[in-house]
């Protein structure tokens, strides 16, 4: 065997090692994706015990889903709860990241704090939601504590008010994700050339000035990355509101998210509308992902 044929025979192994991924991807992700899109063009649902369809109806599912008012409402709900969780999350993460990476502060117990703030990210969202539900129920410990402290005279119905339910969901999302964001931002901050900070210090800049004038602008790519990945995650918000509100999104479906809506269609075997909704979500996340992709790629060139 000469050398050239050997090189060729090695590289063929590249294809062989790719087989498992490609096969499983094609079967379990590509076929489902295509058939989800295919489903979106058919009238196909169950009404009681009778099966309607599948009948080809073109884009009518899309028209229904956009015009019947549910989708915009649930989209707005999802965005409200995402923003309510994301703003405190990013502020807190920037603050903690700046403190952890500031060499002049020399914070002690950093490992402890990093361990603690990342912990909620690993907790089962359904267990966390169930825990919040029991803690904040009418006769739960939070109410009993607040009454003992004299804040309230009688139990506050956390589950009965639109904004308290949304606040609880946003709080849980914030708690679950700020640790992750902090660590990402910290890695970004550590990547900034330290001589820039030194130069600014020599020039007499205060730490606030350094943060706003140097850290933030140089962190912009990572901030945008964090924001868009968080937005993609926010669009997928499901476990926490689903379990906290028992799938109803109550009061008055004010905490119903897009994926909860999809889940509802899937459970009632309403495949036509579920398909159209999936395609809608696919297009939005697709666009957002492309933006992220561009950012991660441009960073690699650096």
């Amino acid at each position, binding site marked *: 065997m000469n050398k050239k044929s050997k090189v060729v025979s090695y590289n063929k192994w590249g294809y062989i090692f790719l087989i498992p991924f490609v096969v499983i991807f094609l079967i379990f992700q590509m076929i489902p994706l295509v*058939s989800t899109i295919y489903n979106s063009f058919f009238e196909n649902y169950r009404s009681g015990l009778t099966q309607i369809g599948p009948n080809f109806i073109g884009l009518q599912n899309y028209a229904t889903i956009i015009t019947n008012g549910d989708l915009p409402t649930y989209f707005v709900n999802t965005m409200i709860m995402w923003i309510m969780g994301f703003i405190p999350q990013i502020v*807190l993460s920037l603050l903690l990241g700046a403190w952890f990476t500031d060499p002049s502060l020399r914070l002690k117990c950093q490992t402890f704090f990093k361990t603690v703030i990342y912990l909620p990210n690993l907790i089962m*969202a*359904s267990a966390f939601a169930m825990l919040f539900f029991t803690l904040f129920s009418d006769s739960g410990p939070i109410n009993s504590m607040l009454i003992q402290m004299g804040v309230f005279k009688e139990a506050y119905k956390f589950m009965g008010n639109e904004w308290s339910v949304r606040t609880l969901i946003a709080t849980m999302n914030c708690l679950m994700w700020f640790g992750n964001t902090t*660590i990402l931002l910290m890695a970004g901050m550590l990547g900034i050339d330290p001589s820039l900070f030194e130069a600014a210090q020599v020039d007499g800049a205060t730490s606030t000035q350094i943060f706003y004038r140097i850290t933030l602008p140089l962190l912009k790519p990572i901030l945008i990355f964090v924001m868009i990945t968080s937005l993609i995650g926010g669009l997928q918000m499901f476990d926490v509101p*689903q*379990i906290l509100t028992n799938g109803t999104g109550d009061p008055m479906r004010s905490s119903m998210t897009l994926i909860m809506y999809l889940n509802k269609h899937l*459970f009632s075997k309403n495949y036509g509308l579920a398909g159209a909704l999936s395609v809608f979500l696919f297009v939005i996340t697709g666009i957002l992902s492309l933006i992220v992709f561009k950012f991660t790629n441009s960073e690699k060139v650096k």
Partner: protein
Amino acid sequence: MDMAATNTTSIAGQQEKGASVHARRFISYIVLILVSFLCLFWFYVLFINATRSNSELSLGFTPFPSTHLVENWVNLRSGTLPIFNGMINSLVIALLTAGLATYFSAMTAYAIHAYDFKGKKFMFTFILMIMMIPTQVTVLGFLQLIGKMGLDNNALALIVPAIASPAVFFYMKQYMDSTLPLSLVEAARIDGSGEFRTFNQIVVPLMKPAIAVQAIFSFVGSWNNYFTPALVLHDDTKKTLPILLAQLRSADWLKFDMGQVYMMIAFSIFPVIIVYLIFSKHIVGGVTLGGVKG
């Protein structure tokens, strides 16, 4: 400006900075302690309440643990929800998912890292592009597919797809770029090792740190997953912990022994907390590595 003036200003600047550092350090400690409190408070209440009996719980909250921990545990074991069964289901699914995802992602990453073949660049870009597409948007087709394949209500439908995990692949690829020299692979070739054997006996052991980090993440991800399992698994004996917790929520939970409810929540999250406390250094480090080196 003469020498003396320069000196005083620099000293004054130093002192002023020293004072402000103290103040800032003080503020940051306070905020950090508050934040840590916010993170841990819920788990503290959970732990306390898991040790108290139903009648004690109805009296209101106390910050001290009671003596009913074992009793709640025994009640939970003899309760109506098949929670221990659920724990075993969750464990089996999560372990197999973690194993398949890490091994085959390492294999996929190795294919792209170590070989030059047509379409290599395309494959890499393609996997990166599909990385962020959420499972939710394909779940409709997925459910129909596994229905046709006879995998409905079967844990295999949750385990096998883990072989194609783009995010795990991406991490492995990053790690290989920084730690796996191709000269090592060539040396193995000269020594007559087959490609597959080289991968299993040289590459996989070298990838151990990355595999450990990603195995933990895949394990936790699968352990915590609720959306897909809830749509795939229907029999009580096959359900995983998150589904059982959701069932608890939709049951008339006021009739439940609340001590038992807290015990059940604790039971489903403490295993992950313990694993986390053991591996926390690697996990926190792993997030940083995977997240930004892109």
